[in-house]
């Protein structure tokens, strides 16, 4: 091959073609007579199959059992893998591990998960076991006690982590009424009092066919996957689904600063922001574009300012947590103790700027190119695709969401960005939560607002 290297012009980027269109992969969906929603995604690239069971319950429902029930949803989900009447926890672990598979259970605010990944050749037998774990968990007293000890110790070690401390201070003060204020794993005092009957009560109330989504992904035919699901779940009796309590909307009227002492801190962990909104909000697309520009990707304003210009931090980012019934907006960073005030001041100035001024055409173009160009990367693995489909069902999002993602991002205008930043960002009414050295935080942050010191953070 002869190449004229000497005349290669490196001074300008080569002209390249627009990216090719990508279609959201086809999938199969069905609904069983008892209300179970089923999805199958066929993908034979690797000889693996996964199943995800998603139950529409989570930490949000802790409050249905009273103010002191924080952690109940999480404890219940942790115990799913700890045996059935037919098979104890050790036997379950042994058979799953022997086949090289893995299972996990856990919960978030609006959803509870149980999942299995295995080699294709062992899938059917293991699916049977995991289905039983979901429908007939034993919740033995012995396992409940064991798990409670484990959680209490994990909560203790969380106190060593600045990000945990800052998040507690933030959530607790952003959401005053709603269960989104709770720590998913609960607090030591609440977890300590749970008994088998509380767990059973939670399970009976929320683990219902009408609340269940099953997604099977991998090297399996959809017809085989459906028969497999029907053979196990058709007999699960339908029960009416409990209506969730909707809590009063919380709102802030001024900026508040909270400081939490982290022993031996050499950095401040900063989390600041305020309430956002739920996942179904019609402004979703302009908000995603606005946030990407503000703090959602590497070349965003906030990361550029704090990391690339000032060298204050390894990284800074902003994001909206879109929940089912509400949501929040936050900016997150870690900075050396003495830089805390400077970094926060820069963040607030970025929030003020985007709220009060138009962004540039170039900035918006870059964000659109980034979001649409990197979109196919999110479709690389069958598991990632499954999570996207599950979210449609979980949050009640329009079916064409993924097919229209690119065109809706491309349709966002400068005016839209202006409107949503004006509407949804409130730099004058922030919760600023900082875990670090309280003395240093107090000294400098009093310039912004009075500093409230939070103690006993493990009980928030």
């Amino acid at each position, binding site marked *: 091959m002869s*190449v004229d290297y*000497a005349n290669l012009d*490196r001074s300008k980027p080569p002209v*390249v073609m627009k990216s090719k269109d990508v279609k959201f992969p086809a999938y199969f969906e069905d609904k069983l007579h008892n209300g179970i929603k089923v999805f199958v995604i066929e993908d034979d690239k*690797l000889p693996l199959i996964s199943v995800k069971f998603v139950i529409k319950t989570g930490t949000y429902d802790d409050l249905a059992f009273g103010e002191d029930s924080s952690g109940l949803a999480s404890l219940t989900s942790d115990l799913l893998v700890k045996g059935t009447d037919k098979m104890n926890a050790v036997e379950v672990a*042994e058979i*799953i591990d022997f086949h090289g598979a893995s299972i996990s259970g856990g919960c978030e605010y609006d959803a509870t998960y149980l999942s299995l990944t295995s080699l294709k050749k062992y899938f059917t037998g293991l699916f049977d076991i995991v289905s039983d774990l979901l429908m007939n968990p034993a919740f033995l007293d012995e396992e409940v006690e064991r798990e409670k000890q484990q959680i209490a110790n*994990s909560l203790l070690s969380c106190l060593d*982590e600045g990000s945990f401390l800052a998040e507690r201070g933030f959530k607790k003060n952003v959401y005053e009424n709603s269960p989104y204020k709770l720590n998913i794993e609960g607090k030591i005092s609440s977890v300590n009092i749970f008994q088998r009957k509380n767990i059973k009560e939670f399970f009976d109330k929320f683990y219902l066919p009408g609340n269940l989504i099953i997604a099977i992904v991998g090297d399996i035919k959809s017809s085989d996957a459906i028969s497999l699901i029907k053979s196990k779940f058709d007999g699960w009796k339908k029960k009416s689904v409990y209506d969730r309590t909707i809590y009063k909307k919380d709102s802030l009227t001024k900026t508040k600063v909270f400081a939490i002492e982290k022993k031996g801190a050499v950095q401040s962990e900063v989390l600041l922001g305020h309430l956002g909104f739920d996942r179904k909000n019609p402004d979703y697309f302009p908000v995603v574009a606005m946030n990407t520009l503000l703090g959602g990707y590497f070349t965003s304003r906030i990361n550029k300012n704090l990391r690339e210009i000032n*060298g204050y931090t390894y990284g800074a980012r902003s994001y909206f947590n879109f929940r089912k019934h509400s949501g929040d907006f936050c900016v997150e960073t870690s900075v050396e103790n003495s830089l805390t005030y400077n970094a926060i001041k820069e963040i607030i100035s970025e929030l003020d700027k985007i709220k009060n001024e138009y962004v540039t055409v170039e900035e918006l173009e870059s964000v659109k190119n980034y979001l649409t160009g990197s979109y196919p990367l999110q479709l690389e693995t069958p598991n990632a695709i499954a999570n996207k489909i599950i979210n449609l069902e979980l949050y009640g999002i329009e079916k064409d969401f993924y097919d229209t993602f690119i065109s809706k991002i491309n349709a966002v205008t400068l005016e839209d960005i202006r409107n949503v930043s004006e509407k949804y960002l409130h730099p004058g009414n922030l919760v600023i939560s900082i875990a670090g050295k309280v003395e240093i935080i107090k000294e400098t942050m009093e310039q912004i607002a009075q500093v409230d010191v939070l103690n006993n953070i493990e009980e928030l």
Partner: protein
Amino acid sequence: MDIKEFELPNGMKVIMSKRSELPIMSMNMTFYVGSKDEEENKTGIAHLLEHLMFEGSPNTGKGEFDEILNNNGGDSNAYTSWDMTGYYLVLPSTKLELGLWLDSDRLTGFGISEESFKVQQSVVLEEKLQTQDNVPYGSLEEESSGRLFKTSGYRWPVIGFKDNIENLKLSDAEDFFNRFYKPNNAVLSIVGDIDYSETEKLVTKYYGGIERGEKIPRKKFTDGYLIKENSSTIISDVQLPGKFMFYLIPKIGSREYYEMQILNKIFTAGESSKLYNEMVYNSQMANEAESMIYGMEHISIFFVNLIARKGVKVEELEMKFDDILERIKNGNISDEEIQKAKNKLETGYFAKFSSSVFLSEKLSEYKTLFGNYESLINEINMYESINRNNIINISNKYLNKNQRVNLSYLPKE
């Protein structure tokens, strides 16, 4: 696996793998240089240079690399290890040439300003605070490396010592760049929706004219296995006491290294594993009990991580762990347990091929360390012939008390 490779006259090795399900591509450029190649008073330069490589090159100014990439729907990142430095970028596959232009320009010359250097020096110091100094048990790498190694460049942490990082100069970065960032010291892997002959043509266009560097002299590896236990207690701001054991084991890719992989799975894979079952589940002494292997070019590390439940002493964790290990050494291990470990490794093997970013990284890594990518594909066969006796032998050969670093972290007061 659909894979093709070629080598440019300047010594740069290129691996391509075509997958056309999605219109994307991942590039990974790995240089055969890591923290072990640093001078002892300039630790941290390999990693700091990794940060600087995004800050400008002869034809891109400060910040432009990521701006151009993001503006085209792309992303990038990089990592530094003891032995290697890897850079990846992803882009829509129609923009392959843009990726090659961006990446190759970094090899045509050093284009970093003093200002960029200062900023990234602070960023790295913050990174060290965030990922190590402000994290419970976060000083483990620093505490262990100097005890495990005495003479080689493995004896300092990859990120470097704070004092050294603070005193590094722009000229140190340029020297390091000039020594190691040469096409004959690099492997480029490209995975995605690509055409082989077109890609070969473009790679040749952008990298072919870059001059080969001189043969890089490598330091002889001078560290050996430990012969005396090195124990220490560290008083720290932690709630729960921790016990951490480090054993040196054979280098990555050796037969004994794969034997250790099986033993590691027996210790740590799933809730039926020895460590979880005996230390967390049955005795409830530990809140976390797991092990892992750090595969390295000359000698590797087997690491055991035990966090106590409140009220349990580190001495009790140590006794329990030693007891589990002793039983394995005495042959108390079944063929079924060996099979279980192999099954876990079989499932895990496929994970390497699930994402194009990860696959391109692995192809570059294997080519750099072993001189061929086939060992990545054939790795799974390495385990077949390993049996119970091998596992008993290897545990007796490398996992003895006098061969370990034994660290305890205790809460203050």
